[in-house]
């Protein structure tokens, strides 16, 4: 009896462990192939993304294309959940000493990897005579796609092969009703539209309860202001442009032209069924608007996009989005990863990506490869022309996420009538300064 007892116990336990734990699958050995191009020995690089479904498929197709050109480099594209899931995963991987070779992430998370000394500065690789960018390349690439991190010696720690732009979305029929033939270019005109049409059931503006820091950045830019100083060490959003923006927001709420959202992406749906006059969104959201409008039973027939209203002569648009960083591994892998990133930023590959995902490409020359796409996507073509007015959000610091939250909370406090615009902005500036101190 005793023996059976011990045996049974040991067996059950062993069984569970054995049955449920097959031996680790051996990683396939890289097949030795001839024809060394840029990488002399075959390498496999791990590319971690937050791109799922069709975007994931598109990236995998590009990896296959890349392999044709560089037979020695195999890129393994892996979806690692949302941007915040991927951030957690990479943080854990850095702690365990097993980061990927290259990964997509928002620059403020990449700033955290820089702090961990887990990613490499790309300046040398960009200047490399063999695999780097030449002068023509540097002229071709939009400056807002090359990420300089002011707190880390102004070095380039990430490059982007996609960006979005914050735009205003308008309902043409409603504008006409208010007596406007085109979208308002000044904040006074915007207010006139609201005064003519807006009521609690048909607001001008819907603010998410998480605030809208990218929208606020757009407003500040459009009033000629900025959020942070160039060295990212001082807060500027509490100055005139910021104060004017916050006051404008306060006025919209005070006059009941604006409401708080109570459902995720309520602004998209409400606009699509004619229950909101304007939408404010990243261009990444436009496909969702288009779907919602198409699917909304023809309640909105005439809509378009425009830059935010402005006080400046030319528009200034907030251009932002995820970038790609290369992790500290071996020199061979780093070079291979850089080649892959360069490929993603190249004209044809980038055009393929744009067609699949609707983001803006890194190069001006990509326009030539997008002629057909422009025809079928007039809104995209329109926004593309504004890229030259683009300005980056100050997203190249770890402080950006807490600053975003501080700005968002200020907007929500104003929206709820919990603080005056001045007070809200003052609180936000204080929190932002704390975050800036912590990030240095």
């Amino acid at each position: 009896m005793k023996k059976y007892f011990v045996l049974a116990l040991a067996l059950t336990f062993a069984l569970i462990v054995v049955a449920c734990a097959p031996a680790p699958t051996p990683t396939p050995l890289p097949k030795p192939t001839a024809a060394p191009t840029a990488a002399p020995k075959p390498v496999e690089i791990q590319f971690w993304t937050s791109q799922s479904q069709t975007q994931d498929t598109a990236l995998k197709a590009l990896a296959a294309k890349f392999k044709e050109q560089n037979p020695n480099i195999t890129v393994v594209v892996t979806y690692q959940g949302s941007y915040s899931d991927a951030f957690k995963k990479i943080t854990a991987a850095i702690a365990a000493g097993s980061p990927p070779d290259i990964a997509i992430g928002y620059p403020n998370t990449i700033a955290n990897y820089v702090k961990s000394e887990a990613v490499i500065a790309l300046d040398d690789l960009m200047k490399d005579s063999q695999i780097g960018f030449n002068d023509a390349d540097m002229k071709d690439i939009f400056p807002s796609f090359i990420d300089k991190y002011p707190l880390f010696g102004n070095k380039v720690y990430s490059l982007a092969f996609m960006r979005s732009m914050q735009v205003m979305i308008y309902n043409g029929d409603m504008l006409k009703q208010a007596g406007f033939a085109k979208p308002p270019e000044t904040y006074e005109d915007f207010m006139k539209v609201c005064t003519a049409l807006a009521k609690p059931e048909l607001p001008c503006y819907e603010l998410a309860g998480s605030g809208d820091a990218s929208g606020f950045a757009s407003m500040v830019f459009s009033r000629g202001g900025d959020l942070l100083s160039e060295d990212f060490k001082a807060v500027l959003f509490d100055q005139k442009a910021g104060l004017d923006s916050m006051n404008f927001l306060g006025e919209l709420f005070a006059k009941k032209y604006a409401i708080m959202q109570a459902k995720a992406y309520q602004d998209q749906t409400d606009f699509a069924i004619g229950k909101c006059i304007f939408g404010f969104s990243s261009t990444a959201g436009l496909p969702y608007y288009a779907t919602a409008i198409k699917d909304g039973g023809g309640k909105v027939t005439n809509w378009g996009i425009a830059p935010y209203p402005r006080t400046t002569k030319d528009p200034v648009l907030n251009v932002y989005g995820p970038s790609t960083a290369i992790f500290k591994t071996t020199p061979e892998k780093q070079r291979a990863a850089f080649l892959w990133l360069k490929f993603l930023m190249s004209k044809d590959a980038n055009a393929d990506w744009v067609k699949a995902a609707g983001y803006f490409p890194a190069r001006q020359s990509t326009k030539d490869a997008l002629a057909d796409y422009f025809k079928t996507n007039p809104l995209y073509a329109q926004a593309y022309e504004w890229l030259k007015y683009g300005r980056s959000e100050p997203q190249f610091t770890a402080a950006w996420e807490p600053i975003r939250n501080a700005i968002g909370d200020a907007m929500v406090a104003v929206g709820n009538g919990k603080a005056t615009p001045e007070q809200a902005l003052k609180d936000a500036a204080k929190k932002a300064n704390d975050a800036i101190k912590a990030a240095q």
Partner: protein
Amino acid sequence: MTLTNIKRPLTNLDRLKALSGQSVIYAILILGALWALFPFAWMVFSSLKGYTEAYAAETFLPTRWLFSNYIDAWNKVEFFPRYFANTIFIAVCTVAGVLTTSTLAAYAFARMEFPGRDTLFIILLATMMIPFEVTLIPNFILVRNLQWVDNYAALIIPWIASAFSIFLLRQFFKSIPQELFDAAVIDGCTHLRFLTTIVVPLSRPALITSGLFTFLATWNSLMWAILVTNKPEMRPIQVGMAAFIGEAGTQIQLLLAAVTISVIPVIIVYLILQRWFIEGIATVGIRG
């Protein structure tokens, strides 16, 4: 059941009383069921709507019934069947593991005398008080050093012991009448035999409950799965569901379809287990 088995003859008044009492209970149960069911039903109906209609949430029933959403949801995720199979495999292994380790440990904590018993039990409970996020990184480092990344082991082994289940079973094992133990002693029964032939059958409701909750916990964990896997073919269903939530919008009708699909196996498991669940000690009796 013996509850209504009243020995004295029933009068008409008794019957009337019982009947009106029963109607009240039914009414309350139906109200409660509606409250539990309504949001779920709305979710299922919304999963059959078009994008805008689902989001606008103005009606309960779809104006157009888009059963194609389910096909779309299934097709949108490249590895859906594989994810599904993985999740079931992981859940079944975890449940088997948890039930084995918990039954043994709970029995010791409930019925045996040994030095440090209460301290060991409190330490066990204390592990439930540490937020999961805090142990995420050390656990990942451990799993990586064991070379379990992209291996089912990483998705199963860390979860095959559960303080929750041990605690639950301990409570139930404690309530088994002392007389049974004493009778077993006379029969010359060992602990293990007593456990397997008497305690386990008598504790079926508790075992099923703990198995069910383990199954659900496995069914709903996302972060750990993303952490310890890279190959899509090793991943569970939650990863596929997370993919419907985009950066600038959510394909809500497809997400809700995917959520509905993922509920089905759990409901099937529950309905299968129900039969055993209802037959507990009360109906089996304590004849031992």
